[in-house]
């Protein structure tokens, strides 16, 4: 289904479409696209959810996302549904509770149909570390869709559902959005509740939507943002995103980040040049700004994220829940064997890296220093925002790469996050907008541009995305050659 959530919910509210039909359409699309590996599991009660939405409509309710089928990344808890995080260690774990953000989608009338494939515990930039196999890019199935929220991106790009949720710790929504040709939004840290999002790196993680139109982006954000008593880091206020859709960007100051303009593929360079023209055409001011700390972002990111991850993932020991290694009697041996068998290589690498960075004697050299660099990155961005309303970078220096191409070289894989991690380190909002295509080996591959705004200015990015979409007549919002 390639109709937008805005269109579908309006049709449902008019009584022209039925949620129970939409869920069937999404389920058949999921089946038809199964070869893309976008989904880890179907939600067992999807049809019942749709029926409950119909009952609410019959009772006179007019929810925002009435009957819209949605996929959520498999690190978001949904009661009665598996929550695997793409890991063998949770492969049969069924959650007894629902994440706040998922509940909000349901309260808004959405129907959660499936759980999206992902890099194991969101650790990866290609969806290849999933214990359930890679997700494939619908534009070229030999290529990755990006990661870690690859499955959620593919589900939207390939028309399984109009909306999905991902989580973004260092670019895990924006990078796959760029590589699959859809919108991906990472809100200001604290905008969306993390309660029920399985933590990778708590101080960086943020949930956000994938969508095929700017107005769907606004619709889904309006449904999910807002304070939550169950998340002590959630913000007290929430903007109104739909009101920002029609806001003029004339006179806004855009600054292209100079350090992010080098080292990109020609298709990415072309998209950046075109973006500059489009913005100028919209009456915005376009300048360049230097962000000297950009090059330290990835290093700092891995030394902030992996220590938190080493602690966050300590709970997977097979004692109370999750899989437990067979045939081991002694408790410490059992925990070791369970984790040895249950975690994949990338997770083990990051847990070890994080444990090391926090260890006595290394803390100051690594964790503590990374926190200082994090502060410097935030200061650098604050300085840039003194003269600009929005910063612009490519979302990724390159379009989708081939499956297997970077798996043996973690540092090359981590480099994919160079333009995105700064938003997580500083806690600011950022959006990836479809902005072009690059043809590689005879296949068109989507390219995304990233807009960054100061903390709390999330709705500004929706205005920019909508203006950009209107100015380009949605030229970069195409269905992949399925």
């Amino acid at each position, binding site marked *: 289904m390639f109709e937008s959530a805005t269109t579908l919910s309006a049709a449902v509210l008019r009584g022209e479409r039925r949620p129970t039909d939409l869920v069937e359409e999404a389920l058949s699309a999921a089946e038809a696209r199964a070869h893309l590996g976008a989904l880890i599991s179907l939600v067992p009660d999807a049809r019942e959810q749709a029926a409950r939405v119909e009952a609410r409509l019959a009772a006179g309710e007019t929810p925002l996302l009435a009957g819209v089928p949605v996929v959520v990344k498999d*690190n*978001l*808890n949904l009661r009665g549904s598996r*929550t695997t*995080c793409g890991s063998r260690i*949770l492969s049969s*774990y069924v*959650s*007894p*509770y629902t*994440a706040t953000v998922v509940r909000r989608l349901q309260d808004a009338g959405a129907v959660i149909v499936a759980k999206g494939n992902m890099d194991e515990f969101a650790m990866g930039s290609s969806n290849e570390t999933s214990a359930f196999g890679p997700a494939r890019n619908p534009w070229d199935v030999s290529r990755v869709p990006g990661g870690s929220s690859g499955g959620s991106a593919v589900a939207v790009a390939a028309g399984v559902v109009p909306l999905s949720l991902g989580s973004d710790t260092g670019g895990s929504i924006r990078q796959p959005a760029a590589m699959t040709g859809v919108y991906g939004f990472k809100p200001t840290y604290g905008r969306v509740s*993390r*309660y*029920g*999002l*399985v*933590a990778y*790196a*708590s*101080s960086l993680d943020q949930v956000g939507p994938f969508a095929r139109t700017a107005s769907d982006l606004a619709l889904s954000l309006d449904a999910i943002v807002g304070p939550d*008593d*169950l*998340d*002590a*880091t959630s913000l007290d206020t929430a903007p109104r995103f739909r009101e920002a859709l029609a806001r003029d960007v004339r006179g806004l100051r855009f600054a292209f980040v100079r350090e992010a303009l080098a080292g990109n593929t020609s298709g990415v360079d072309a998209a950046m040049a075109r973006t500059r023209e489009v913005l100028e055409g919209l009456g915005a001011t376009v300048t360049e700004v230097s962000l000297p700390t950009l090059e330290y972002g990835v290093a700092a990111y891995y030394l902030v994220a992996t*220590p*938190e991850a*080493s*602690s966050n993932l*300590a*709970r*997977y*020991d097979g*004692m*109370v*829940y999750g899989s437990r290694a067979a045939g081991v*009697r002694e*408790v*410490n041996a059992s*925990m070791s064997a369970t984790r040895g068998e249950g975690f994949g290589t990338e997770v083990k690498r990051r847990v070890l890296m994080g*444990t090391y960075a*926090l*260890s*006595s004697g290394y*803390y100051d050299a690594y*964790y503590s220093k990374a926190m200082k660099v994090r502060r410097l990155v935030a200061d650098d961005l604050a300085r840039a925002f003194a003269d600009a309303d929005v910063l612009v970078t490519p979302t990724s220096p390159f379009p989708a790469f081939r499956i297997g191409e970077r798996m043996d070289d973690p540092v090359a894989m981590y480099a994919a996050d160079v333009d995105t991690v700064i938003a997580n380190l500083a806690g600011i909002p950022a959006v990836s907008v479809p902005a072009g295509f690059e043809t590689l080996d005879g296949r068109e591959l989507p390219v995304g541009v990233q807009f960054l705004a100061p903390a709390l200015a999330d709705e500004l990015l929706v205005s920019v995305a909508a203006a950009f979409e209107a100015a380009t007549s949605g030229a970069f919002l195409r269905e992949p050659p399925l």
Partner: protein
Amino acid sequence: MFRAVIGLEVHLQLSTRTKMFSRCRADYFGEEPNTFTDPLTLGLPGTLPTINREAVELALMFGLALGCDVEGFTQFHRKNYFYPDAPKNYQISQYDRPIARDGHLMVGGRRIGIRRAHLEDDAGKLIHPTYADYSLLDLNRAGMPLIEMVTEPDLGTPEEAREFLHLVRAIAQALGVSDANPEEGKMRCDVNVSLHRPGEPFGTKVEVKNLNSFKSVQRSLEYEIARQTRVLEDGGRVTQDTMGWDEGGQRTFVMRTKEEESDYRYFPEPDLPPLVITPEWVERVRAAMPELPAAKERRLALAGLREADAFTVAYDVELSRFLDEAMTHGADAQKLANWLLGDVTGWLSERGTPLERSRLTPAHLAALVRLVDGAAITGKMAKDLLPEVMEGADPEVLVRERGLAVVTDTAEIEAAVARVVEANPAVVANIRAGNAKAVNALFGQVMRELGGKAKPELVRDLLGARVAVDG
């Protein structure tokens, strides 16, 4: 001669309605295992902690009672270690920003420094069934709020350590911060002890962990001081070990050596923003604080209690609660204390019943004191009534129903005196011959005549007058 240097770490379980970081109910004591849990308590994926405000306020109160600095930034850290009783495999504790710092407590006139007190969540409980090749896990206690209080190494003797703990418990109970009951695991203690010669640097310290009674704190310290003294006198060196206490054998044993110490990899808890304790918040908490034992001691002394009794009552939450209420019923404070600390305590301890679970009410004890004071009954009669009053009987009702009231009718007593004097001319003669003690024989007879219910002073006066008049 060696001198002991002792420091204590005390864990108190806070009396909150819900757990430290979730809305899970906290009143699990005595309930079925694993029935007081929620997603956070179980450490389920995706759960997040939120700070229990009640726990923070109890910790503030406790910190204020110990004269600690409690204002400003306080922050939680994660303490990472793998152990099956910790569902997250980390504890949310406090590291370099504890909620309370730099306080003190006076023990027998000596100032014992309190280095810090911080908040943290408790672990679950492992159960090792006898002869089983498995262990069981009960997570009811997991996530319960704890205060960990650390003293400076200011304590000098095992007795002083025990006295310190007694005072801490009294303060915690008086404030309602914690039941501080070691038997229920709500007050647990680790001790640090080293020996040195006065004037020389401190010796190597040994930690004894998981002591669950004041007695084992004292005994383990006595044992360690004796052991370390022997080691040093033999020219040996004390090694920095972590010890356990063998209750059966009454001795310490090595749990782990310094090399086996874990690296807890503390780092700031990213799920909880720093907590700012404002001066206004502190003042609100201070204003709501119940009376502290030291203030209670002064008040009771002013109310007329002997110094020793005022101390005993003020530092025992049940005694002071009882006495305070009894005093509202218009009875003399010292006389109430005499009963409470004497016959009442004796009766209770013979039966192993704590005061708070006895049927004796403050009103009834006050009535008993008033009956004696008003000369309605004698002290002896009151003592005879006590067993029934302890079982919940109202002494005023007993006296009324049984017609026990003392005979104060002078005419009735005079008649009895006359009868006894007439019946015992020889004794009377003996008295008049100068044997004053002989009057006691007559006194006893008069009292018997009146069924023991006469006011003794009145009987003596009238008897004395009669014997003299007849002379």
